C-alpha cells in the first residue's frame, strides 16, 4: 500500500492512503490535534468527509483498527478477575489460513498463547470447543489472553502473514 504524505502550510499534515483501485482515504492532521477523515472514490470525484475526530478519539480509533484496542461493552457475566487477560471476539475470514483446520491442527494456544473458549457460528455458540472442532470461515473465535497474545492471534488469522 502506498501512502502519500504532504505538509499543508498553516493547517498540518495530509496523508493519502491508496485503497482498492483508485479509491483513496485521506487523513488530515491539523496542528491543533484535530483529525479529519475523507474518502475519495476516484481522482475525478470529490472527497467525502467521513469524520472529524479529536486527538484522543483518533488514537482510540487507530488502536481499534490496529486490533490492539478492544473493550467489550457487556462484561456482566464475567465476574472472574482476568488479570492481564482480556476476552476478544475475532472473526475468521474466508481467506484465513486457519479455515478448514481443526483446533488441534491450528494449535492456536501453542502459537499465540490465547485460549479459544468458545466459537460463535451463526446463531449457535460452541462453548468449550473440542480439539477436533473444525474452524470454518465466518466463525467468531472467543479468545482469552493478554493484549499481546490477542494481537498475535489477529496476525495469525490474517492472510498477510503468508504473503
Amino acid at each position, binding site marked *: 500500500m502506498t501512502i502519500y504524505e*504532504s*505538509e*499543508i*502550510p*498553516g*493547517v498540518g499534515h*495530509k496523508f493519502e492512503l491508496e485503497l482498492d483501485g483508485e479509491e483513496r482515504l*485521506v487523513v*488530515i492532521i491539523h*496542528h*491543533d*490535534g484535530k483529525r*479529519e477523515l*475523507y474518502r*475519495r472514490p476516484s*481522482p*475525478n470525484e*470529490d*472527497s*467525502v*468527509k467521513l469524520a472529524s475526530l479529536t486527538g484522543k478519539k483518533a488514537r482510540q480509533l487507530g488502536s481499534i483498527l490496529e486490533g490492539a484496542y478492544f473493550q467489550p461493552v457487556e462484561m456482566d457475566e464475567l465476574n472472574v478477575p482476568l488479570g492481564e487477560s482480556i476476552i476478544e471476539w475475532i472473526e475468521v475470514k474466508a481467506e484465513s489460513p486457519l479455515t478448514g483446520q481443526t483446533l488441534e491442527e491450528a494449535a492456536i494456544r501453542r502459537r499465540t498463547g490465547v485460549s479459544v473458549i468458545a466459537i460463535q457460528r451463526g446463531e449457535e455458540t460452541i462453548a468449550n470447543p473440542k480439539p477436533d472442532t473444525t474452524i470454518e470461515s465466518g466463525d467468531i473465535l472467543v479468545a482469552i489472553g493478554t493484549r499481546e497474545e490477542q494481537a498475535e492471534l489477529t496476525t495469525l488469522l490474517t492472510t498477510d502473514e503468508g504473503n
Partner: protein
Amino acid sequence: MADPLLVQFGIAVTAIALVGALASRIGLSVIPAYIVVGILVGPNPPTAIGDVSLRLVRTGEFIDLLAELGIVFLLFFLGLEFSLQQLVSNRDRLVKVGLVDLGINFLLGLGLGVLFGFSWLESFFLAGIVYISSSAVITKSLIDQGWIANAESEPILGTLVFEDIFIAVYLALLSAVALGEGTPMDAAISIGTSIAFLALLVGVAWYGSEYVERLFQTESNELFLLRVTGITVLIAGTALAMGISEAVAAFFVGTMFSQTDHVSRIEQVLSPTRDLFAAVFFFSIGLSTDITLLADVLLLLGVAVLITTIGKFVSGTLSGRSYGLDRTRSFRVGLGMVPRGEFSLVLSTLAMSVGTGALGELIPAFTVGYVLIMSILGTLLIQHADRVTNTLETAFT
C-alpha cells in the same frame, strides 16, 4: 468621556468576538468582519447612530502596538510554516505555477497603477496588494469546503507557498526603498543595512538550528511561550528601530524555528496569541479607515476588483491545467485564489507608514475596500464553485 484604556480594549475585543461569531455563522471569512466592526466603533465616520456615539474606541498607542504585534505574529507564522523541503521537492511545478500567478496578477496591478496615474513606487505597492492572495482565508475555505482532500488543493497551496516567499522578499525590498527615501546614498545605506541584518538572520536560520533547538528546550509551556515571544518581538523591534520592516524580520525569525523540532509546539502554544493580535490588527485597520475616502477610489476599486478577479481566475485555471487537473478542477483552482486579505493589509500598513502622496491615504483606503470585497467575494466564489463552474462549462462548450 475618559474611559480607562481597559474599557476601550474590552469593547474592542468584545466587538471582534461578536462579529466573528456572526461571520462564522453565515459562513463568511472573519477578516472583513473584523475590519468592518473597526470602522463602526472607530473615530472616523459613521460616528453615531442617532444620539448614540459610536466613537467607542479611539486609535491610540496601545491599539497600534497590539496591531503591530499582530503583523509580527502573522509573518512569524508564515516563516515558521515555510517548508524548504516541500519547496525543493516540488520545485519545478511550484515555480511554474508561481510564475504564472505572479506574471499575470502582478503585471495587472502594475498596469492598473500606471493607468490611474500613480508614481512607480505607488504602483509597485498597488501591484503587491492586488497580487497577493490570502493564505488565511483560502486555507480556511479549503478546509470548510472539503477541497483540502482533493487534487485541486495542491496547485492552490503550492501557489500560496510561492506567493508567501515572494511577499517576504518584496516587503523587504519595498520597505528598504520606501523608508530609505532621500538621496540615493541614503537609500543605498538603508538597503545595505536591511540586507546585512536579514542575512544575519538567515545565517542563524540556516546554520544555527541546532543551537536554537537547544536554547528553547524547556518543559514548561509558559516559559516556552515567553521565550519565543520575547525573541521574536525583540528582533522585530530591533529591525524596526534600524529602519527595517518588522514584518520581514519576524518572517525570518519564523524560518529560524522552522528547521527545528519546536514547530508543532509553537503552533500549539502560540497560535492563540497570534489569533488575538491578528484580530486586533484587522480591527485596527478598520479603526484607522475613513470610509468617506473610499468615494475617491471608487472607480479604481471597481476596475481592480473586476480585472484582478479575472486575473486570478485565469492564472489559477492555467496552474490547475499544468498540474494535470481536468477543467472543472482547474476552474476551482482559479476561484480558490481570488480571496485577498492579511498580506495586502500588511503592505498597505507599510504604505501608510511612508505617508507620502497616494501612499498615505488613497492606497490604504483602497486596500481596505479591496480586501473587504475580495475576501467576501472570494469566499462566496469558493462556496458556490459548483454553480460557477457549471455556468462556465456551458459557456465554453
